[in-house]
Every structure is written in structure tokens, then in C-alpha cells.
């Protein structure tokens, strides 16, 4: 603890360190708000700047970029219906619906406050009980990984607006898109139709840009609304204190879910936000209001998404395992400076571990200050643009964002194609979210399912291990429950008549 206090005081009283973190936060906010520019890409762009820095200074800069860019993914999700990252995909449901009702300012404020809350809870758990969580996360074998991914997909199908059966079909199509390309184990091509571009499979970002951004822009182009704006004016910025307090339990639940799932390597923020959102819908007395623009639909996933930052750092710091591509870049920064994260670092350099904790805390505080005092007001101005400018700008951002992921023209084709498909799905009443989640989680599900069957021989292992058994049973209940209830209700009604 004394190391942490020293590190915090040292960083706060050092203008150079504070300035570096502030620079990282501003860069993270701007880059993260751009569709197609992921947290990983933002970190990668900043990586060369750290070559000449001391390790603490480099971590100050990188953690500033990391936390701010994770939060900023919600900005384009709320304002433009384009989730820049998988972690922001659930935020579009209620965040953009609030923006359409003229409550964009409030939605952004809820997202910011929930993000900061989730960030702080994740940080506290990282500092306090990281080794305990890491030990529990390591008990996850391939059956548990496969089950948790299936669980996440089931919850998304259930929680998306619209029919569960259509959600199930959309999720299955997403999983099929996820298997396109060369199989990682056998190198056999699947559904590539002989084209070179499909050998590597689909990247989620161009697909998400098309499914959410292009499709939404096409929908908004159907008719010109009165007033020449896509969405109503942005309304008040800060929510009332009473309503904020009412959302506190949801933020707390989302934060714990985010930290724990974030600590499971490869599970990632996508599963965490799906679980957090579905849990709130399940606990709500008015679940039908989810997806229509309610604060809880923004607070829970945003708290979970940002708590994942602390969660993802847990296996990285305690075991040296990168939980996702972002922490892989951070490990790269440490390795570049001659440090190997893991148990040895804890024992030999506790003061450096304290510096990382301090850097993350300062990044959270600075993100709150910069986004709260400047960012919200600037971002809100976007919605005041005339409709023709906003929609044209969104389309151009979609094309540029899709290209910039891999500098590939094929990705623009993917964004345009998935935009047209997404528009068709919107008209057919098919929820898009399960499709996007299927693409993200498909490869993880397949890898762990095959590994499970190879190691354990048959499917019964999912029923003999307590964690996977529980997750599979809940998933089946979530998927089958509404269908069974509807069938029983229809039968009862027919008997009465």
C-alpha cells in the first residue's frame, strides 16, 4: 500500500508524468470515438513514441490511451449507432435509442459516469484481490471457455430486441461468418469460394461498421424527417442525482461482471457487456423497456466494458498472460523495456507494479475530467449537424474506418455488403446484435469446443464439470424458455376456448 501511495503522489506531483497521461487520454478519446479505430490500433499508433521513454512514463501514456479509448467507443455507439469496439456493441441498443429521443447528452453522461465507476471498481479489484481472481480464472479449461461463449451468445439472443428465434438465426449466421477462412488447426479453407481475400476470414470491425453504421444510415435515408435533423436536439447533459443513484446497483453489478469476465483470458469485453445487459433485463420489472432507450441499458454494459480494463490487467500482471490484443500490446511495451510481467515482477519490483496501478487510476480520473468538462459538449455538437451532412459524414467515416483496420479495400466491400445485409435484416425485424457477436465469438467457441472434444473425448464433459454445466443449463433455459412459455400459453388459451 505504501508503494501505491508513493507512486500516486509521485505521479500527481510530476508535471511531465501527468502531462503524458493527459496526452494519452486526449488521443484515446479522439481515436476511440472514430469508427474503425480500435483501442489496439490507438495503442499501436502510440507505441513508437514510447521507445525513448522510461518504463513508468511509457505506461502512463499507454494506460491513458487504453482507458480513454475503451470509454470513447461508446461515443460513436450512442451518437451514430456505430460501435467502434465489440465492447460497445450493446451500448447501441439503448444509447442510440436515447439519442433518437433527444436525450443524447444524458446518454453520453450516463455512459461516462458508468465507465468511470466501472473503471474504479475494476481498479480496486485489480489492486486488492488480483491474485485471487487470477487463480479462479485459471480454473477455466476449454469446456468452461466454450460454455461461457455459448452463454454469452444465448444472452445476446435473449436480450436483443425482437424475436428470440430470429435472434437465434442471426447468431447462427454470425457464427457461420466466424468460421469463414482457413481453419487454424488444419489449414483447410472453409466457405472461401476460392477467393484469396476470404482466406483470412472476416474482421469484426468492418462487419460491425457495416451492420450498425451503414445499415443505420440507410434506414435513416428512407424519409426526410421534419426539421432536417436525424435526431432530436441533445437535451440536458447531466442526469438528475436521484436517477443516477437509482442506477448505482446496475453499475455495481456490471462492474463486478466486467472485472471477472475481463480477467478470463480471451473471453473479453463482448461477453461481459452481453452478460451485464441480459442480467439487468432479467432483473427488471419492465424488461420490455430495454432497447427503447433507458439509462440502465447504457449504464450496465458501459460499467462492465470499462471494468474489463482492470480485469484484463489481472492475468497480465499476475501471470504474464495477455487476455486480449490490447494487453498483448501492453506486454510488448514492458518487454521492450526489459520487463517480463508475471509473478516475478510482483516479487522483485513491487514499486513498479504500484506505478502501473497509479497510472491506471490517474488515467481514469483524467478521462473523467477531460470527457466530462470538454468531451461531452464537443461530441454533442455532432447531432446538431443538418441531416444531410451527418448522414454523408457517417457514410464516409464508415468507409474510411473499414479501410483503416487492415488497409484493405476488401474490408470496404465487407462494410458495404454487410451494411446492405444489415439494412435488409432491420426491415425483416431480425436483431443485428447476435450476428455481430457470433462473428466475434465464433472462432473462440470453435477452438475451445474442438479442444474439449479432443481432450475429453465426448460431449458429456459439459455436464460433468460444475461451471460448464451451470452455464450450459442457463443458456438452454434462456433460449428455450420463451418458446416453451409461449407454447404453453397458447395451449392453455385454446383449452379455455
Amino acid at each position, binding site marked *: 500500500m505504501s508503494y501505491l501511495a508513493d507512486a500516486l503522489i509521485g505521479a500527481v506531483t510530476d508535471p511531465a508524468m501527468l502531462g503524458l497521461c493527459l496526452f494519452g487520454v486526449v488521443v484515446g478519446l479522439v481515436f476511440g470515438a472514430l469508427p474503425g479505430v480500435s483501442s489496439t490500433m490507438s495503442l499501436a499508433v502510440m507505441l513508437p513514441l514510447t521507445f525513448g521513454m522510461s518504463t513508468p512514463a511509457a505506461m502512463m501514456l499507454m494506460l491513458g490511451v487504453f482507458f480513454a479509448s475503451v470509454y470513447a467507443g461508446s461515443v460513436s455507439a450512442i451518437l451514430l449507432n456505430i460501435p467502434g469496439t465489440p465492447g460497445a456493441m450493446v451500448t447501441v441498443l439503448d444509447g442510440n435509442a436515447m439519442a433518437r429521443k433527444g436525450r443524447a447528452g444524458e446518454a453520453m453522461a450516463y455512459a461516462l459516469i458508468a465507465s468511470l465507476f466501472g473503471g474504479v471498481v475494476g481498479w480496486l479489484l485489480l489492486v486488492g484481490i488480483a491474485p485471487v481472481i487470477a487463480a479462479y480464472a485459471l480454473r477455466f479449461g476449454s469446456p468452461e471457455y466454450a460454455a461461457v461463449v455459448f452463454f454469452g451468445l444465448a444472452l445476446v439472443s435473449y436480450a436483443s430486441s425482437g424475436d428470440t428465434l430470429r435472434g437465434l438465426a442471426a447468431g447462427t449466421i454470425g457464427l457461420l461468418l466466424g468460421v469463414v477462412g482457413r481453419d487454424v*488447426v488444419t489449414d483447410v479453407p472453409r466457405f472461401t469460394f476460392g477467393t484469396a481475400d476470404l482466406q483470412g476470414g472476416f474482421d469484426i470491425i468492418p462487419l460491425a461498421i457495416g451492420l450498425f453504421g451503414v445499415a443505420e444510415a440507410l434506414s435513416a435515408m428512407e424519409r426526410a424527417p421534419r426539421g432536417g435533423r436525424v435526431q432530436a436536439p441533445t437535451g440536458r447533459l447531466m442526469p438528475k442525482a436521484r436517477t443516477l443513484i437509482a442506477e448505482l446497483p446496475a453499475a455495481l453489478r456490471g462492474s463486478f461482471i466486467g472485472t471477472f469476465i475481463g480477467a478470463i483470458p480471451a473471453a473479453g469485453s463482448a461477453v461481459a457487456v452481453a452478460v451485464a445487459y441480459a442480467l439487468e433485463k432479467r432483473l427488471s420489472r419492465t424488461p420490455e423497456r430495454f432497447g427503447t432507450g433507458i439509462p440502465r441499458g447504457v449504464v450496465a454494459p458501459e460499467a462492465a466494458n470499462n471494468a474489463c480494463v482492470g480485469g484484463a490487467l489481472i492475468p497480465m500482471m499476475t501471470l504474464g498472460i495477455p487476455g486480449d490484443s490490447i494487453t498483448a500490446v501492453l506486454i510488448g511495451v514492458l518487454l521492450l523495456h526489459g520487463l517480463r510481467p508475471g509473478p516475478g515482477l510482483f516479487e522483485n519490483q513491487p514499486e513498479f507494479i504500484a506505478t502501473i496501478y497509479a497510472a491506471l487510476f490517474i488515467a481514469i480520473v483524467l478521462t473523467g475530467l477531460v470527457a466530462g468538462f470538454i468531451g461531452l459538449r464537443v461530441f454533442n455538437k455532432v447531432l446538431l449537424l443538418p441531416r444531410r451532412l451527418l448522414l454523408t459524414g457517417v457514410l464516409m467515416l464508415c468507409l474510411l474506418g473499414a479501410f483503416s483496420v487492415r488497409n484493405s479495400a476488401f474490408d470496404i466491400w465487407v462494410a458495404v455488403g454487410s451494411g446492405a445485409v444489415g439494412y435488409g435484416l432491420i426491415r425483416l425485424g431480425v436483431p443485428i446484435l447476435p450476428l455481430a457477436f457470433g462473428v466475434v465469438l465464433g472462432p473462440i467457441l470453435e477452438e475451445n469446443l474442438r479442444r474439449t472434444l479432443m481432450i475429453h473425448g465426448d460431449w458429456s464433459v459439459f455436464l460433468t464439470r460444475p461451471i460448464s454445466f451451470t452455464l450450459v443449463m442457463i443458456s438452454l433455459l434462456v433460449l428455450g424458455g420463451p418458446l416453451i412459455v409461449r407454447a404453453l400459453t397458447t395451449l392453455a388459451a385454446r383449452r379455455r376456448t
Partner: protein
Amino acid sequence: MSPTPADETQRREVLRDLATGALSLVLAGGLAAVHFGQAGRLHDDYGREPGPALMPEILLAALGVAGAGMLLRGAFFCWRERVSPVSWPVFWTGAGGLRALGTPLAVVALLVGFLIARGAVGFGLAAACLSAAVAMILARQEGRGLPRAALEGIAIAVVLYALFRLVLSVPLT
């Protein structure tokens, strides 16, 4: 007696069930034909490793079942209520009817045009033309002046191109 709005909403849902179910079945069938028709090592025996064919086969079966479920649900409603899924005028001009597709389809055509033109004239010029064209289509829809909209569209393209090209160093070609 003419159908009530609630009837129309329900009928539209039935039409969506039938359309989504049929599309899912066609997709599952088509992809299954591709999958099972693929030569090479896809269907080899990999011993204890389940092999690359397992996951697609599970998913194709699931998609087929979901498609058949939606199709049956829609057909069951039509049979029970003795109605057609949705009346033609509503299908064409009602809220969300097919007549509203004009502008989105025109924009999709422009996007495909941009993708084809990009290779010949470069990203910047193609993007400026696309941006101007989309802004003009939307301005026409709103009853505003086209020349000004074209200039605004070009300005948007230039600003965003400069942001990605110069600030983010994305090689836009």
C-alpha cells in the same frame, strides 16, 4: 370489414417470419451444398481432433432448424387465422413499405460505384464524388439546393480524408 392496425402489425410479423424462415433455409441449404461438395481435406478423419467440418455442420443444422421453425410458425398463423400474411397496399406504401427503399438502394448503388471507381481514380477523388452525390440525394429529399449540398459533400470528404491520411497515416489509395 377492413383490418385494424393491430391486425396489420401482426400480419407484417407473419410476413417477416415467412421471409426470414425461407431465407434461412435457402442459406443453410446453399451453404450445406458448398460444404459437403468441397473436395480436399475438409471431411478427412483427424482422429481424436473433431476436424474442421464439425462446427459448420452444427451451425448449418441449427440455421436450418431455426429457419424451418420460423416458416412453420408463420404458416401456422396463416392457417389458423385463414388470412394472407399482409395486404399488398400495406406491403408497398405502409409504414416501412417497399416504396421507401428508393433512396437507400440508390445510395447502395453509389457505394458499389465508389468501390469500382476507387481503383481507377484513387480513393480521394472517388470519395469526394461519392460524398457529393450522397449529399445531393439527401438535399433533394429535403427540398434544398443541390450545388451547395455538393460542395458540402466534397468538404466532408476532404476533411475526413485529411484526418485519416495525415493524422492517422492510413495509406488511402
